[in-house]
Every structure is written in C-alpha cells, then in structure tokens.
C-alpha cells in the first residue's frame, strides 16, 4: 500500500531546504522504508501500553542550587556570527 507523504511539507517542518530532485528521491526512499515500517501495524497491540523508556524509573531530580555558568567568550567563540555579547542572526520572518 503506497504511503501518503507530503514530502515538501515534511521537509519544511524539518527545516531542510532541499531541491525538487532531492525531495523526489527522498520521497521514493521514504515510501520503501515506510512500507516496511508499516509492519508494526500487523502485530496485535490491543491494550498494549507504549514503551517510551526502557528503565522503569520515576522522579529523577536535581536540587535547586545555582552552579557555574560557562565563560561567555568561550561560548560566543563558537558562534557563526555575533555582535558584541550577543549571537546574531538574519532577520526573523515572524513567530
């Protein structure tokens, strides 16, 4: 059964600026992979809870204590673009 994929929309959601050719190729590969992946639907899972986590743990917390932050220069040195004490990015289209 062919899988319904709007590959351009998926690429936009994933913030990947892909060429039409690349999109077409990914589309066909995803069709193949998802055709396989659809097998997960073949197993009887009525009443089966999902597993998100392999270990049965709860309540891993840390105490509310302030620790040292990073050195600003060390952080900003890695920035592709900066202005003074800030990271700089091109204009933002809107929220």
């Amino acid at each position, binding site marked *: 059964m062919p899988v319904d994929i709007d590959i351009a929309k998926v690429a936009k959601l994933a913030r990947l600026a892909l060429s039409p050719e690349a999109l077409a190729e990914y589309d066909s590969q995803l069709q193949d992979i998802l055709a396989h992946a659809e097998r997960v639907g073949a197993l009887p899972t009525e009443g089966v809870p999902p597993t998100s*986590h392999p270990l049965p743990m709860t309540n*891993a917390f840390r105490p509310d204590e*302030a620790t040292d932050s990073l050195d*600003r220069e060390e952080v900003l040195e890695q920035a592709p673009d900066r*202005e003074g004490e800030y*990271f700089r990015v091109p204009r*933002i289209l809107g929220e």
Partner: protein
Amino acid sequence: MRGWEAVIGIETHVELQTESKMFCGCPVRFGAEPNTTVCPVCLGLPGALPVPNEEAIERILRIGAAFECTLVEGSLFHRKNYFYPDLPKNYQITQYDLPFCIDGHLDIDVDGDELRVGITRVHMEEDTGKSIHGSESGRIHDAKFSLLDFNRAGVPLVEIVSEPDIRTPEQARAYAAELQRVVRSLGVSDARLEEGSVRFDANISVRRVGADEFGTRAEVKNMNSLRSLQRAIAYEIDRQIALIESGAAVVQDTRHWDEGSGKTTSMRSKEESEDYRYFQEPDLVPLHVDQPWRDRVFASLPELPAIRRHRITAAGVDRQAAAVMVEAGDLADLYDEAVSLGAEPRTVGNWLSGDVVAYLRRNETSLADTHLRPDHLYELATMVGEGALSSTAAKDVLARVLAGEGSPAAVAEQYDLLQISDAGALEAEVDAVLAGNPDVVAKLRAGDMKPVGFLVGQVMRATGGKADPRIVSDLIRTRAAAG
C-alpha cells in the same frame, strides 16, 4: 456590543524565581549581562541533557493546589517541536496530555459580583531566550537582523490556562489581577508584568447572545500591564464584532497588541497551523506525585488572598482597605500582627491602607524600610481608643513613627500631642469660655443646642487643640443646664 457576547480565555505564563533554571544549574537572575547565565544544557549544546529542578516542581504543585486543582499522580514531560532562533534546542520541553495540575478554578470579584473562572490546566515548561530586533522600532517586521541573549532560556515557566469563562474586559482584568495576587502570596514568583515574570495572552471570540457555538477566536499577545490587557480585549471584541457585522469573517490568528496605537495586528495566521509533533521527552523519566506528596503540598499552602480579604473584612475593616492590604501582602501581615496584639481592626486597617500607603508612596519607600512595628500600631490604636490622642493627632504620630522618631507614646509626648481628657482639668477652661459668651449660654438654656459646637471650638482653641472634644461637649451641656 448590543446583542453580542465575548468569550475570553486567558493563558498566563509565570516565571518561577527559583535559584536555578528548570533543567540546569544556571542561576535565575533578572537583568544579568547578556549570555552570562548559560551552560551546555540551556544553550542546547550537542550532548547536553536536562535534569528537572525539584523546587520548581514543588512550586508548580503549590500553584495548582492554590487553584484547587487535581494534582496529577503520574505526569510527563513532552517535547514541543518548532524552529525559532530563541529556542536553543528547537524544541521546548513542556507538558502535553499529562500536566501536573488539572481542573481547578479561581474566584474573582468584579465590582462586588463574584465569578468563578475554571482553570483547565497548570503545566511546567522552560522559557525561551530573548531576541533584540535590529531596527529603529525594535519590532521584528522592519528588522534587518536580530541579536540573541539566552539568559532567560530554561527559566522555569508555569503556564496557567483558564476555561473560556470570562465575558468582559473588566472580568479579564480582575482575573489577571487576582491570579497575580495568588501567585505572589505563594512566594513562588513576584509575577511582575513589567519585568515579564508574568505574561497574559488572551483568546477572544464573539458570538450572538444566546448562541451555543463559539466564534472563531484570535489570540492576543504583548499586553504589558493590566490596563493594556483590558484595553486590548476591548479593542479586539469591537474589531471582531465590526468584522462580522460588515459581512466578513474572523480569521483564526495570533495578534500583537500595540500599546501606542491601541490596536491589535496580525502576527501569523493559524491556517498554516503548526504541527508541533509532541512526543514524550526521552531524556526525562516520568513523574510520580504520590498521595503523601500531594497532601504535603495542600498542607503547606498559605492563606490565599480571597480568604484573607474575607477574614479581614469580617473583622470590621472596609472592603477597599482589606483589598489594599492583601494586595500588598506585607501590610496585611502587619495588620494581622497588630490585631493579634489586641489592636482595633478597623482603625488599624484604615491607617495601613490609607496613611501608611500614602507615606510609602510619598517617600518612595517600602514598608520593610520604615520603623513601623505591630506593637506601635497597637499602642497607637489603644491611645486613640482611650481618648489620649485625637484621631487627627494620631495621623501625625503615625507619620513620625514611620519615619523612626520613636514609639507613639514617646512621639506624642515629645510633640505635646496628648489630649486632655481629664474632666477636672477642663472645667476651668469650659467655665471661662461660658463666662465669655453669655448670649450663647442663654440660647442653650432656652433649649437651642446648636451653638454647642461653637463653644467646643472655643475650648479647643483655648487648649491648643489638646482637649478631648467629646468631654468638652459633655461639660458644656451639663454646666449650661446647671447654671
């Protein structure tokens, strides 16, 4: 808006003032130098992992408990996926279908009318960084670039979602104000709009009165005072009604309130609706808030503002005075302490909500920085009650006590403000005045009691205002009748 009804729900974001951020140890500090309270976790560096702050969770549970929410036994963190440069990981750790607190309410009072607003949910999330837009207006639209400061990224943020139970801009304002009071009373955040530690977004739609269906709603953001919240909602209601009446339709969108122009403008249409791809945060384990923990949270709640106002009003204090004191918190604390020493509630309430507030405003100071103590209020109220001090003189004494000049008794003594309420000491003064005004005395004897006030005034002048006017009045009446 005749024939129309507005339906309003409010989403509130409260930044918790914990020592450290939600998922890392960076300090929570307003006004720090840009990009100085950041670490691998809150900057979203490769490989970094979040670990929840236990105190933040304790605090959100207190907020939920204050709204009488159900505290959910098993809750989860999810990832909300969207790209935005102020969101370091390009997903926000938040809660989805299993938040910490659900199904609560907040009772508000709008000009004496009580309204119960449902609280759908209270959930925990992390705040984003801040962007500064490189344009003259500082607005995003005409900016050529933006600068990013991640100090705020990861600050614990509590989202409180109301039911669409609000109908008017006034109710919305009352809801927001009462919510702020509750949060402050819990000591979890100062909830200041100006500093952004509380933010209100309003979901607004309109419908014909009597309609069951909701209209298409718009979300309005960027209100940075209670007044602008009220104005923005009023504007938006009018806009939507005008739109529909002109034959057009309301488009579901997110709108920006502009304080200067007094208008809302569209930021983005919800048509290109976000697909946030929520899924359970795999870097965090589930949360289990068991019954003993939930009981502990409820037991730890302080007296909430509405209950406190009720109690203070019931003791005889004016509603307005009680509201002012509870709003400020520290004034109500001082009130409670003075009253517990035996001070007369109504008098103390009036001083605190009136004279003290005026003093603080005039001197741009805070209660903690004055010298006023609960025993001072008790002493002062007792002096007035016993007639040792006139209520006018008491206000003078209070101001001097606030300024640190000493206890009420010492101040009254020092400035010679004590009232003469000993009848024996006043008899001579009264007799002298009566002797000097025979025609007035004659009127009294003829049964015309109106000039008593005039004679009292004469005695007061003669005693430099220190005589107790009630006693003087009594003396005049008895002596005139006897003569």
